[in-house]
């Protein structure tokens, strides 16, 4: 028999048990003989009243001592709740054939059956969860900008490296009127499909509102109240949103609880560091007001936006890479194209973690003002 994913096997057997009971029996006996987790999962997932045919398949499969040892416990557990007459009779028939066991053994068997049923269910659950993760990842991938609007004096790019479990990182570039560029980076609390959905609504709100007004504090306030109303109480997001005006090289921004982006400016006596901190708390948690900050960029400035997945990337002794290491590293990249800075920095963060599993999404956006 071809090894099949358990859910397909289960669906297939459901149909087969009606269409061709002999064949269904043959397939189940094969599953029984191959044993293993597929069998446990199958046994754990057929407890609905509609699955009487499948439980009967099990009850009819007790051919020898080994089968009995493996299946009797399940049969005893099902017998209590069985509502299908044929299955009831088949289970009673199968158990009757067993040796009279002591009460203690029965209890033990019952316990084992309950546990295996629980494990089977848990495994089926996990299977579903895996699919959920795939969906979440797909949602997330669609949210990242597919196209970068080109600007004459700004070299920029961004990338998100998702963790195995989908986190809630988000970044976006928005093409605005009058040669302006919107830049967003954020991190939604939680993981999985809930986080992905919140991220989607965040993106949609931002894209809808950003093109309307130019007061960023007001904008962030609106996003905050949208997210606040739309999401559950314990869900929130950090969000940094900025608009770069190419006409005067000014960066207006609001920082809602996000790790402050760093600006590196090369000067005669080394490198100056600025942090973009003006704003307010995270969005979605409280009804709050925000403040808008503004920063005049100069040619040659390097702006690094990141999520905590970068700064907190850990090695296997649980040591964090940290913002300082990030800045120190970025200093070494001065003069390089934005794409180069991004790839090198990501590589450095990963190099630090040195193979330790990635816990969180890692997102990095780099802007470079061209001379």
């Amino acid at each position, binding site marked *: 028999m071809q090894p099949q994913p358990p859910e397909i096997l289960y669906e297939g057997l459901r*149909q087969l048990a*009606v*269409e*061709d*009971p*002999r064949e269904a*029996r043959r397939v189940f006996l094969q599953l029984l003989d191959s044993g293993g987790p597929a069998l446990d999962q199958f046994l754990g997932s057929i407890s609905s*009243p*509609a699955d*009487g*045919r499948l439980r*009967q398949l099990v009850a*009819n499969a007790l*051919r020898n001592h080994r089968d009995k040892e493996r299946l009797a416990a399940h049969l005893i557990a099902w017998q209590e709740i069985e*509502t*299908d*007459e*044929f299955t009831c*009779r*088949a289970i009673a*028939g199968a158990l009757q054939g067993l040796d009279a066991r002591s009460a203690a053994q029965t209890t033990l068997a019952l316990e084992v059956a309950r546990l295996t049923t629980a494990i089977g269910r848990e495994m089926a659950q996990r299977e579903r969860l895996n699919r959920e993760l795939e969906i979440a990842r797909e949602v997330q991938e669609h949210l990242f900008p597919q196209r970068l609007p080109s600007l004459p004096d700004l070299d920029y790019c961004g990338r998100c490296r998702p963790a195995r479990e989908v986190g809630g990182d988000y970044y976006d570039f928005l093409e605005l009127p009058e040669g302006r560029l919107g830049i967003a980076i954020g991190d939604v609390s939680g993981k999985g499909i809930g986080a992905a959905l919140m991220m989607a609504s965040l993106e949609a709100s931002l894209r809808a509102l950003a093109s309307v007004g130019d007061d960023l504090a007001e904008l962030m306030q609106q996003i905050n109240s949208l997210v606040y109303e739309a999401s559950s109480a314990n869900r929130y997001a950090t969000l940094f949103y900025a608009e770069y005006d190419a006409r005067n090289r000014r960066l207006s921004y609001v920082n809602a609880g996000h790790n402050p982006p760093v600006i590196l400016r090369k000067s005669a006596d080394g490198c100056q560091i600025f942090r973009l901190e003006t704003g307010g708390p995270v969005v979605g948690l409280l009804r709050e007001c925000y403040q808008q900050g503004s920063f005049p960029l100069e040619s040659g400035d390097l702006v690094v936006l990141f999520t905590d997945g970068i700064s907190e990337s850990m090695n296997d002794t649980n040591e964090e890479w940290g913002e300082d290491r990030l800045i120190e590293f970025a200093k070494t990249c001065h003069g390089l194209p934005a794409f180069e800075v991004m790839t090198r920095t990501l590589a450095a963060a990963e190099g630090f973690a040195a193979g330790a599993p990635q816990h969180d999404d890692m997102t990095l956006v780099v802007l470079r003002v061209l001379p």
Partner: protein
Amino acid sequence: MWLVEKIEISGGFLPGLSVNIPRGLTCIIGARGSGKSTLAEAIRFAVCGASAAPKHCIDLIQANLAGGALVTITALAEGSNRYTIKRGLKQQPVLLTSDGRAIDAVDLDRGTFLPLDAYSSPEIEAIADEVLGQTRRNLLDALRSEQMRAIHLSLAESARALDANADRVRTAQRTIQDLTEQIEELGDVRARLSALAPSDREPTADFVRLSRQQQLNQRENAKLDAVDRDLKTLSQTLDQLRKEAQLVFKARLGEERSDNADMLRQYDDLLAASLQPVEKHLSAIGDQIRKAQGAVAQARQGVGQAHTSHASELARLTAVNEAASEQARVRASLEQQVAKLQGLEEQRLELNAELQTLLDRRKSLKATHILMRDQISTLREEVASELQREAGERVRIRIMRNADHLAYQQMLVDALRGARVRNHDEIITALMQLRPEHLAQLIQVNDCASFEELTSFGKERSRRILDAFRESIDPLTLEVIAIEDRIAIELNVSSGGQPNFKDAADLSRGQKCTALLPILLARRDSPLIIDQPEDNLDNHFIFETVVNAVQRLKRRRQMIFITHNANIPVLAEADLVLVMNSDGRVGVVEKSGTVDECREQIIDLLEGGREAFHLRSKRYATATA
């Protein structure tokens, strides 16, 4: 949700009765024969008509509304619409809106416009007593009537498809059987032919060729016949289609007197105009069919000539053979038989392929059919768990799938008679562990090994039983035999410790009502009328099950209880108590009001009088002291 707001009766046993009925719980109490049941049944009669109630209720109504009494019900429906229903014996009901307009289009007796649930005590007992059968199922199915109707329609359709398929399977099987017998009869002619000593003197090659050709000729004729038949069917279908098309395209959309008649007339013309091209296409198809029929006739004529010449040639050769030696004659006859055998074998091969296709198709038809029946059970489980949620823990309602299987069991019992085996009961018990579709398959493919493995009857016995079944059971019928669910309605009669659930049928009269009431209460939102059995309800369960459920659900639906148990009006806080009395000639509402206002009467009628009540309270007091 709707409400019975008011009932008025003119004449009969309750002349001049006029009662406003509140939301929530109304309890009707009174001595035997005081008119309680008449009042309750009058409401049912007015709203649902005579066909909705069992005979004993209708008898009561006929006796007590005689002489032209009229029942008038005021109903408050959703959206605060008021309706008035007037109904008397032997006359059509009248349904009026609040402004006095008559509504003719609504047939109240269908029970969909103002649905009402009413149960007399014999009806409640009947539900309790009928363990198998439709009564309890109806109780659940009515709550999903739309879905159930849809499933039953699809089931009927798939049953028809299964029947048609079974007919074709049987025909194919019979023909294969016939062919096999003919092949059997011919025996091993090939071996006999090759055993003949070779001889050069016999001009056999032509003879063999012609003998075979004759078989082929026969099959050619059969095929021509089949094509003729199919063309004829096709032509009849076409005629039918033509007639239907005429009906459709000549249809008139407009209503004669309608203002829109003119506007719609142009669409009528458009439709009518489509008829001509449609007919043109249809007659073109007819032409093609006739052409094909002509071609078949020509083909028949063409091969007919060839067939005749083959036949005369064969006859000539046969005559030659007859005249020849003995051995040549034998050889000729054997050659002819071999040719026939070959023809039969080919035919059987074709039929077997057809049978296989039919059986494959049947598999999915059967699966769809059976899974559709499973859906009914699943729907019932849904309803049951909804009812269970409301009914509380004392009462348990479960769908026992496939437990109403008497027809199946009887089929096995009958079939076993011919099996010459002992201990039929024991065998039936073991066989009832097999689902009909599984057993049918074992019978169909004659799988004795699996049969033995599943039943542990032993080889010899399994063979005998399976043979008897193959003789007398049609697997095509067996595999889709209808087996129904049993609705288990059970009451936990244990007063603590291990629960002990007993089916309603096995309970005392009072307990039966106790088990059923929570379920009847929870069924839906329409007004509910319950005429409790005169029997003392088991007080032990009353509080836990009935009173609790009434208290909880009376906010959701209006309830009218005829009761003999003081706990219900008192503990469930009746919104209205109606005390009925009678002088034997007519009945009246002697007093109506709240529980407090009717305290005297409740004590008198339901607690066995003041003295008994005091005595009991004293005993309780000393017991609890």
